[in-house]
């Protein structure tokens, strides 16, 4: 059995392990809350940790497709949906933390925040855009929408990731180190897609050219 094509059983295991590993940040927060070990400002800590992992899972999700292409490991695609849903899961926790723990349903202030504070405006927009993606992350919806339309809809994830990184950059007081690392990683992930596109376009052109050459040499073939 090669790593390129592993059997269903192994894939199941990989999925289960990924699922559990993806829960570790949440478990650490829950244990920290229980032990009162989240520092002097636990609400801030929970906000930061859930936000961090939302972005991290968005970037991990965006890594799957190029990684599959580079490595040829087709089974990676079977993890993509789950990783994307984990990004949404942490985004829900992040937004709920803001809504309940940080603002405690102070709707006036929340509306003001969303309108007046650019970093909240963009973060909130990214969250809202993730909702249709999460709702259509199942086989039934793919069938209903049709592969092409589904793919178009899900390219919104690029927008969400960019908005998420901008949200992060705008909110830090001064130290941009981690937001910049996230930006660079996202840049690489978008760059590699752009590169593949150019590569594919060239290949297509070359193939068309070859075909044309071939036809010139033996025109009877097409008949």
């Amino acid at each position, binding site marked *: 059995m090669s790593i390129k094509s592993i059997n269903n059983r192994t894939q199941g295991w990989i999925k289960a392990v990924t699922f559990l590993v993806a829960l570790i940040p949440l478990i650490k927060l829950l244990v920290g809350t229980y032990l009162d070990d989240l*520092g*002097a400002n636990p*609400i801030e800590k929970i906000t930061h940790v859930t936000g961090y992992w939302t972005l991290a899972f968005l970037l991990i999700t965006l890594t799957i497709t190029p990684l599959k292409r580079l490595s040829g490991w087709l089974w990676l695609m079977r993890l993509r949906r789950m990783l994307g849903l984990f990004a949404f899961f942490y985004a829900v926790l992040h937004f709920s933390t803001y809504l309940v*723990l940080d603002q405690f349903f102070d709707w006036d*202030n929340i509306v003001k925040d969303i309108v007046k*504070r650019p970093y909240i405006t963009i973060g909130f927009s990214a969250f809202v855009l993730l909702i249709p993606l999460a709702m259509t992350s199942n086989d039934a919806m793919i069938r209903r929408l049709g592969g092409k339309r589904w793919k178009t809809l899900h390219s919104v994830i690029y927008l969400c990731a960019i908005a998420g990184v901008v949200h992060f950059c705008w909110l830090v*007081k*001064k130290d941009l180190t981690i937001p910049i690392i996230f930006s660079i990683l996202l840049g690489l992930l978008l760059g590699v897609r752009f590169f593949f596109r150019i590569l594919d376009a060239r290949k297509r052109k070359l193939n068309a050219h070859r075909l044309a050459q071939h036809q010139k040499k033996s025109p009877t073939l097409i008949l």
Partner: protein
Amino acid sequence: MKTYKPQAISSSEITPQSLFHARRKFMQMAGGASLAAIWPQSLWAADKLFDVKKSAYSVAEELTPLNDVARYNNFYEFGTSKDEPAINAGTLKTRPWTVTVEGEVKKPKVFDIDELLKMAPVEERVYRLRCVEAWSMVVPWLGYSLAELIKRVEPTGNAKFVEFVSQHDPEQMPGQKTSVLEWPYREGLRMDEAMHPLTLLTLGLYGEVLPNQNGAPIRIVTPWKYGFKSAKSIVKILFVDKQPVTSWMKAGPSEYGFYANVNPEVDHPRWSQAKERRIGEFLKRKTLMFNGYAETVASLYAGMDLKQNY
């Protein structure tokens, strides 16, 4: 007959000395707080500040626990996250320490820290502390009014502002190896602000000398201004005729002004200052004008546009 043979310890199992000491340091730090409670008074005496008077400037509010005051700090010299100063500040050497006071004064002088500790009666002042990041604490500081020191050096008529310069040594302060702010950290006050009795030359908190991460061995506390105005680990106090440009003004001129008075009506360009979270509390509370010290300090800014002079 069986004889007892001591088992040989393989060299791989011997803890390297550096690790041993690092661990010991960690244990000391972790155990410090709990030890403080049971340690015999006499052994702790070196760090205690004696003959502390209660002050009329104290507020009657519930104190933020020492564990939070000493573990949640903005002190970029030791890292930009708030738990880093408590971890990294062990490298700061607070002895020997001198504070050079010069500029527009008749009697410039280099003060030794031990002289400053005894220069005037030390008071305990329970002040509110409001960070520009919209959280707050209540801290029992120890010190005396900065005015006590200013009187002794006799500022000239040209002294319009006071500039505070903090320690600059990347070996002791690892955060200074990055240029997140311009080092050394600089802060400043207008002369009348510096002379205001609330402005505290601070030497300790919670009955003891300042923990390193809280700005040891000497810092300023101006309770009606955002926390970053209160310079820490000060080595120089300069009397000048022009308004100094502070580290945070350089870092973000549109976000951090010279005055930085706590003001719920003037928002930070990126976030609201109307409310704050008191450390240890769940619901946010309303931020008070001048952090609740309006009665004594509002007159300093009479006629000034506080939106312009943020």
